[in-house]
């Protein structure tokens, strides 16, 4: 096997060299597969979704989701699938289908309660007829809350949970008889994890066509939420959950132990999400024992968590207008509370604090680098859906079916109401700049943070930072070649400019080349034009973080419009925006971070489309039925401005 793998690596390297001698493969090949026939040395954007829940997640299953991981991957590749409400004859009430298939995806079910969810859905298994499972089947949302509160090891699975492959060695409580009695839970855990792995393997295109890539993954849902994405098929035999490993550092320890230390080519990235509703817990700078981060802690975090999911179904995590920023464009898909539990316990709601947002964390990272010598928040950004329908990439505002999760549970009929809480949205996409559509190539892009997020549209977005770039780069056709040759792409760290020996170092200001192309869309649903191209800069000045948002392309005023009554749009904006921008206020002694943001012309938000389709007219109160009252809540905008965010580039003195 090793010989074959080596041969594959060698042949791939040779064929890559034949394609272009300018760039050797920028990633290590760790798996046995045919070489991709399409290899792009200067990389191409691949669109995907790394946050997908199926029926194996407790919350999805208690909302009527029956989609399996296999079906989720089929959906990502363009297949039509049926979703809830389900009739008594098991006929789906709705069908969904992507307009364009994705390039890659990962099913990331909650590993907590894998076993319980499976047992309650599988007649004949021990525990299936337990009272808890009866509640699960009769009052699923009550069971959701009860089972979540019981996920510390007790209840009908309490004696069979342990850690790793020593879970049944007697260290985990209970006597042998009890463990045997409840052994079904461990088995069910492993079976579900096996199903997820098998589905990823079956859907992964290992032919030279390289049409679709899957990753084995899962969600660790502790006091914060994180997705674990594995590099290839070599993965641990179980998915370490927050029930056994309640802090992210414990998760990393266990993943190191089970993956990197034991399996030759196993590697992973951990991607936090929903920092926006994490009550300030995602971007902490203290260890579990309360001591402050050291440089080693910071470096470990950056290695394990090179990315953050900035956009998804439960809101944008970039920034929040009024929470540490006056950037008006931060008023985008904001969830107006600080903690996800406030979704259910409304009287606990308080406005989000600045620390919940990635922009604040990027700034804190700069301060941390000054204080401890390392930046714990050197992360890139991606988007994804967090769909709980098993519908990766379903980011459309039109006919949005709701993504479930913490959203609306749908029983045996479609309720007459908005199908998601109005503060939610259809989610975003993860985009990587990769040489080819294979696990190794995409994983390498994730690891080096050459990745970006969109709020749904397939905007192509690129950014390079260098000390010197041609001012006419946007007009030339060697944008990427020059960018790679002279600088670093998004996700990179700008090193000090070279200078001749014996001469004093030059201290120029960095130049950013940034280019965005609109989503072309499809013939039936064309993409929207781009309105504005921006660079967001954070830097440290006098011990405090400053921010500046610079418009470098397009127009700050709307050139296109949309009528919220019927969602008809007028044309305007640009098909592409590009700029070469040198930082005029650069201080070579100050830590700084830059990222790009591009904004589309406005379109109708999903809720506006749903409200219009339901015949809701706020000036006629009789049309505003129960369940649709939020249609007329002025707190929530009728229009949206889709967008994309690059991963940042950093400068350190």
């Amino acid at each position, binding site marked *: 096997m090793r010989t074959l793998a080596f041969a594959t690596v060698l042949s791939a390297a040779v064929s890559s060299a034949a394609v272009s001698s300018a760039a050797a493969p920028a990633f290590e090949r760790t798996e046995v597969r045919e070489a991709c026939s399409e290899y792009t040395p200067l990389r191409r954007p691949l669109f995907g979704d790394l946050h997908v829940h199926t029926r194996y997640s407790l919350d999805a299953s208690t909302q*009527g989701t029956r989609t399996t991981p296999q079906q989720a991957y089929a959906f990502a590749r363009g297949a039509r699938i049926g979703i809830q409400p389900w009739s008594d004859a098991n006929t789906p009430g709705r069908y969904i289908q992507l307009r364009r298939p994705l390039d890659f995806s990962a099913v990331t079910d909650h590993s907590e309660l894998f076993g319980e969810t499976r047992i309650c859905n599988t007649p004949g298994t021990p525990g299936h007829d*337990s*009272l*808890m499972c009866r*509640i699960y*089947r*009769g*009052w*699923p*949302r*009550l069971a*959701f*809350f*009860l089972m*979540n*509160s*019981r996920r*510390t090891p*007790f*209840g*009908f699975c*309490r004696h069979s949970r342990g850690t790793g492959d020593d879970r049944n060695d007697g260290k985990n409580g209970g006597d042998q008889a009890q463990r045997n009695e409840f052994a079904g839970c461990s088995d069910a855990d492993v079976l579900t994890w096996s199903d997820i792995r098998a589905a990823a393997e079956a859907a992964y295109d290992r032919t030279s066509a390289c049409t679709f890539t899957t990753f084995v993954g899962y969600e660790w849902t502790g006091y914060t939420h994180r997705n674990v994405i594995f590099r290839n098929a070599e993965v641990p035999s179980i998915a370490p959950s927050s029930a056994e490993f309640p802090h992210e550092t414990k998760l990393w320890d266990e993943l190191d132990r089970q993956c990197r230390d034991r399996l030759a080519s196993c590697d992973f990235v951990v991607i936090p999400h929903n920092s926006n509703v994490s009550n300030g817990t995602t971007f902490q700078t203290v260890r579990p024992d309360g001591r402050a981060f050291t440089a080693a802690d910071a470096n470990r975090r950056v290695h394990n968590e090179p990315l953050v999911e900035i956009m998804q179904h439960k809101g944008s995590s970039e920034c929040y207008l009024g929470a540490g920023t006056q950037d008006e464009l931060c008023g985008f898909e904001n969830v107006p509370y600080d903690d996800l539990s406030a979704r*259910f*316990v*409304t009287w606990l709601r308080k406005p989000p604090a600045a620390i919940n947002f990635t922009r604040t964390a990027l700034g804190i990272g700069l301060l941390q680098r000054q204080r401890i010598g390392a930046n714990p928040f050197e992360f890139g950004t991606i988007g994804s859906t967090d769909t709980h329908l098993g519908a990766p990439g379903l980011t459309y505002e039109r006919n949005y079916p709701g993504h479930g999760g913490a959203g*609306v*549970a*749908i*029983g*045996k*009929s479609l*309720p*007459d*109401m908005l199908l998601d809480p109005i503060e939610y949205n259809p989610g975003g996409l993860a985009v990587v700049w990769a040489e080819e559509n294979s696990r190794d190539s995409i994983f390498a892009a994730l690891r080096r943070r050459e990745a970006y997020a969109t709020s749904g549209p397939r905007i192509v977005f690129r950014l390079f930072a260098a000390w010197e770039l041609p001012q006419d780069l946007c007009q030339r056709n060697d944008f990427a070649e020059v960018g790679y040759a002279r600088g670093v792409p998004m996700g990179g760290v700008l090193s000090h400019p070279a200078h001749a020996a014996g001469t004093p170092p030059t201290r120029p200001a960095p130049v950013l080349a940034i280019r965005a192309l609109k989503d072309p869309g499809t013939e039936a649903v064309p993409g929207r034009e781009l309105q504005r191209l921006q660079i967001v800069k954070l830097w440290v000045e006098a011990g405090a973080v400053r921010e500046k948002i610079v418009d470098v392309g397009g127009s700050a005023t709307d050139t296109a419009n949309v009528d919220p009554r019927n969602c008809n749009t007028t044309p305007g904006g640009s098909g592409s925006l590009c700029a070469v921008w040198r930082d005029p206020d650069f201080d070579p002694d100050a830590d700084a971070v830059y990222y790009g943001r591009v904004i589309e012309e406005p379109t109708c938000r999903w809720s506006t489309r749903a409200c219009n389709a339901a015949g809701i007219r706020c000036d006629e109160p009789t049309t505003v039925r129960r*369940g649709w009252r939020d249609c007329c809540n002025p707190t929530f905008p009728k229009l949206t401005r889709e967008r994309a965010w690059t991963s940042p580039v950093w400068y350190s003195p």
Partner: protein
Amino acid sequence: MSARAVKWTTWIALCCLVPVPYMLGGVEIAPLIRLLFFTAVIVLLQISEGSGGPYWWAFVGLGCGQSLLIATAFYGVAALVARASATLSPARRSLAVLAAAAAGIALAVAFQAYDTPMSSASMHSNLLQVFR
């Protein structure tokens, strides 16, 4: 029907018919009897499958606390109704109370007046669906 019977009949009707908001993880707006039923199930779960730590007790506390609060409020309303109906003759009193209860049942069966997102069947339920 005695004043005492009026009070208890009214109280039972209120507990079985009037939609009240309660929180048991999720929020529902349904008759008190549904909350009582859920609370009983949770306590039964506690007995059959063992203790579940502080969150578990929080559920039991929420169920019992809200049930007690709402039941007490309904008792107060029922007492007021009984007092107000004291001026009526026993026959008229019986007619009024039973007619009101019957009308309440008819309305509760005819309309999906309850928000029941914890159900596997429907987000909105009528009286029969509440117990399905």
